C-alpha cells in the first residue's frame, strides 16, 4: 500500500516522523482522513485525537491546537502539544478534567469570559487525553 510521510512537530521537538498508511485528524470543520498522494491541503486542528495506521497497527496521539499541511505526499502537523495515548496518565487526566469542570463552573457563575475560555480549553485537553489513552488501550 502506498504510504504518506507523517510528521508531528511541537515546540518541544518532533514527536512523530514516520511513513504511514492513513492519518485521521481532528480538523476544525470536522474530522478528516488523509491517504497517500492527497492533494495539497491546509487545515486548522482542534484539540483531539490524531490516529495513524502502519502495518495494520493503529496509534493514537492526543494533539492540541495547531494546523496541518499536506503537500508532496507529506503531511505535517504543527501543534502546541502531542502525546502518545499509551504514555498518558489516565488518573491525572481525570483529575485535570474534574479540576477544569470546577473552574469552568466558577467562571460561568462569575461570568468571566477570560477564565471561561481558559477553563474550556483545559477541559477539552483533559477530555482529549482521556479519550486518546482509552483508544490506545482498547
Amino acid at each position: 500500500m502506498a504510504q504518506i510521510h507523517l510528521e508531528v512537530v511541537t515546540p518541544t521537538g518532533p514527536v512523530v516522523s514516520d511513513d504511514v498508511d492513513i492519518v485521521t485528524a481532528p480538523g476544525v470543520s470536522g474530522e478528516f482522513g488523509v491517504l497517500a498522494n492527497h492533494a495539497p491541503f491546509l487545515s486548522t486542528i482542534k484539540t483531539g485525537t490524531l490516529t495513524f495506521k502502519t502495518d495494520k497497527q493503529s496509534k493514537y496521539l492526543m494533539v492540541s491546537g495547531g494546523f496541518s499541511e499536506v503537500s508532496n505526499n507529506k503531511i505535517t502537523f504543527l501543534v502546541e502539544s502531542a502525546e502518545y495515548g499509551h504514555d498518558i496518565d489516565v488518573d491525572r487526566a481525570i483529575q485535570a478534567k474534574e479540576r477544569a469542570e470546577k473552574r469552568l463552573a466558577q467562571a460561568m457563575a462569575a461570568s468571566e469570559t477570560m477564565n471561561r475560555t481558559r477553563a474550556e480549553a483545559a477541559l477539552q485537553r483533559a477530555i482529549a487525553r482521556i479519550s486518546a489513552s482509552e483508544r490506545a488501550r482498547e
Partner: protein
Amino acid sequence: MPGLKDVKDKIEGVKKTSQITKAMNMVASAKLRGAQERMESFRPYSEKFAEAMKDLSGGMTVTLPLMEVRDVKSVEIVVITSDRGLCGSFNANIVKKAQRLMDKYESEGKKVSIVTVGNKAGQLFKRSGKVRQAYKDIMGTFQMFNAREISQDITMSFLNGDSDQVDLVYAQFVSMARQTPVTEELLPIKPVEGDEGEAVEKKEITGAYIYEPEPAEIMEVLLPLYLNVQIYHGMIEVGAGEHAARMSAMDNATNACGDIVKELTQLYNKARQAAITGDLMDIVGGAEALKG
C-alpha cells in the same frame, strides 16, 4: 603593613569565592546545554510556522483584528530578562535597550506601558511606575503555556484599545560570547512578505491548496499561535543567553580570583619575610647586648 593573619584570612576568603564562581560556571554550562537543546528542538516548529504564515498571508485580502494598523497613541513594551542576576551586563543591556525605546516613544508623545517577563526586568522597571503586568519566577522552568498566558494578556490589551502597538525586547543568542538585545514588533502582526520573485512563486503553489476552513479563518486561529511562538522564542533565546552570559561572567570572576590570590600571596610572603627579618634583628641585637 597588614598583619600576617589578616592576609591569610583574606586569601582563604578569595579562594572560597573562586570555588563558588567555578561551581556556578559549571552549573551554568550544564544548564546552557539544556537550553540549547531546547532551542534546537523548537527550531523546526518555528521555521515551519513562519513558512505557513508566509504562504497564507500572501493571498490575504481581509484585515483581521490582530493585524489592524491604528494610529499609535500608546505602545506596550514586553521586556524579557532572566530571573537571576550574576550574569554580567546581560540583563542591563536588555533593560537599557528597552529604556531607550521607551524614551523614544515618549518623546514622540506616545503613552508607554511595560510588561516584564523575568524577575530582573520587573525589579529594574519597578521604579518607572509604568509596569502594567510583571511575570515573575517564570524563566527557570517555562513552558509553552507560560508564553500563551503572556500573549493572551497582551492580545487582550491590544484588542481593548489600551495599546495600539506592542513591541518585544529580548536578547538574541548569537554565540557563546555574544547576546545582542533586539526589538521586534509583535502587534499589529504584519503580513509576512518575501522577496518579489519568491512571493510570486509561492502564490502559484498556494493557489492549488485546498483550505479548510477559509484562509482568513485559518489565519484567525494561526495569528494568536504565532504570537505564542514569538514570545516563546524570545524566552528561549533569553534562557540560553542568560546561561552563556553567566558562564563567561563566572569565568572572568574565577580568573580575577586567581589574580587576587596571587597578589595576596606575594603580599603574605613579603609580610612573612619582614616579620622574620624583624625577629632576626631582635635576636642579633639581643645577642650583641649580652656580649657587651
